[in-house]
């Protein structure tokens, strides 16, 4: 997608998202539970949608700049790796509004026909997983190619630290999912609408895999950055890699928190939402850093 095209895509997705938000009638059950009017419910949705769309815009801007830079260097030795990372970022960025739109449509379908609830929940869970999973696989392939160019290897302390972080995340996540599955007030079927073994194999395992390769990709970016020459080039690249690192890590933490939200609902939902929004804000800062770094690198290739 060249130049302005990506912003047209953004505008189209925002129009669809807002259109769905205003056209789909609020769920009467939700209105009754919180004592809200239909208008109040719509304004509440707008207050959530505005910061969300600003975050998407930052993400699209970051991607557009990275794309321009990767097009300029695609025939260079590091070009192929940067193009792969850019494709990963594209899926990550497009996945943000696409998954939100799909969730709106599925929610409405379930509202119209209650028998579709199980199907829409399952599709929604997989839609949340698939975009970042594909994106992280591509980003990880790109960062691996970058460190292969420099013939770098993982230092032993880094491997041990990553394995330790991975173990904590995996055990923590599995604990939350299993604890909820066997709790008295709910069962795994009420949240995921699938048997536990299927949840573990097709949701928990891919999430853990994705987070792990995400952390490795962030570390590989740092590793490549420490090996490249050039005072000005390195300065610009370090902004870009810091931005990508922030995007990857915040994406992992946001997914971690949002996927265990039902299990954490004894805690204050406001507190969880505040943390998630703070992380989303941090993610948009990451995308702006990506844009800034890519813009500086692009300038080097254009002057």
């Amino acid at each position, binding site marked *: 997608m060249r130049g302005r095209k990506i912003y047209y895509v953004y505008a189209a997705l925002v129009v669809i998202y807002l259109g769905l938000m205003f056209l789909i009638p609020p769920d009467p059950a939700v209105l009754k539970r919180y004592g809200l009017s239909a208008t109040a419910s719509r304004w509440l949705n707008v207050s959530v949608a505005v910061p969300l769309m600003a975050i998407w815009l930052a993400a699209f801007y970051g991607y557009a700049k990275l794309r321009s830079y990767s097009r300029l*260097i695609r025939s*260079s*030795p*590091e070009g192929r790796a940067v193009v792969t990372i850019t494709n990963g970022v594209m899926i990550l960025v497009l996945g943000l509004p696409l998954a939100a739109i799909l969730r709106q449509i599925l929610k409405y379908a379930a509202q119209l026909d209650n028998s579709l609830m199980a199907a829409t929940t399952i599709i929604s869970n997989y839609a949340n997983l698939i975009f970042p999973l594909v994106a992280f696989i591509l980003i990880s392939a790109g960062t691996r190619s970058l460190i292969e160019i420099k013939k770098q290897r993982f230092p032993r302390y880094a491997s041990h630290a990553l394995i330790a972080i991975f173990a904590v995340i995996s055990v923590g996540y599995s604990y939350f999912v299993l604890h909820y599955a066997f709790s008295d007030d709910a069962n795994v079927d009420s949240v995921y609408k699938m048997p536990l073994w299927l949840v573990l194999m097709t949701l928990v395992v891919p999430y853990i895999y994705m987070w792990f390769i995400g952390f490795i990709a962030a570390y590989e970016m740092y590793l490549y950055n420490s090996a*490249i*020459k*050039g*005072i*000005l*080039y*390195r300065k610009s*690249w370090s902004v870009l890699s810091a931005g990508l690192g922030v995007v990857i890590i915040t994406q992992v933490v946001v997914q971690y928190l949002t996927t265990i939200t039902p299990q954490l609902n004894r805690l204050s939902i406001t507190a969880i939402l505040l943390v998630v929004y703070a992380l989303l804000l941090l993610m948009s800062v990451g995308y702006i850093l990506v844009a800034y770094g890519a813009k500086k*690198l692009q*300038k*080097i*290739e254009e*002057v």
Partner: protein
Amino acid sequence: MVAVASNQLYDQVVDVTREYLGPAADRFIARQITNHLQIAPEDLANADLRKLIDWLKLSMAFLTNDELLIERYISELKTIARIKPARKSSGGTRYKPVRSAVPYIKK
């Protein structure tokens, strides 16, 4: 890497530039020579160096506001221009490799 037929002078300019622009140095220098001197990078000769350095100073100013860094870069390039050809050998004119004498200290 930009495919440029062997030219030691060109390689020296790229080597100096690599300290500043890393992997982008080769492409950067090839572009400056092609666009501003209107010659092929492999045809770069000692006589073109002064003009090239002027263009490089200007181009670097677009990339950074750090005047100290630009001055250091230009003085390293000027060192290449001042070097007289070493003893003639069967391989043609040779130039001594340039290494920066003063390490860059960021203020």
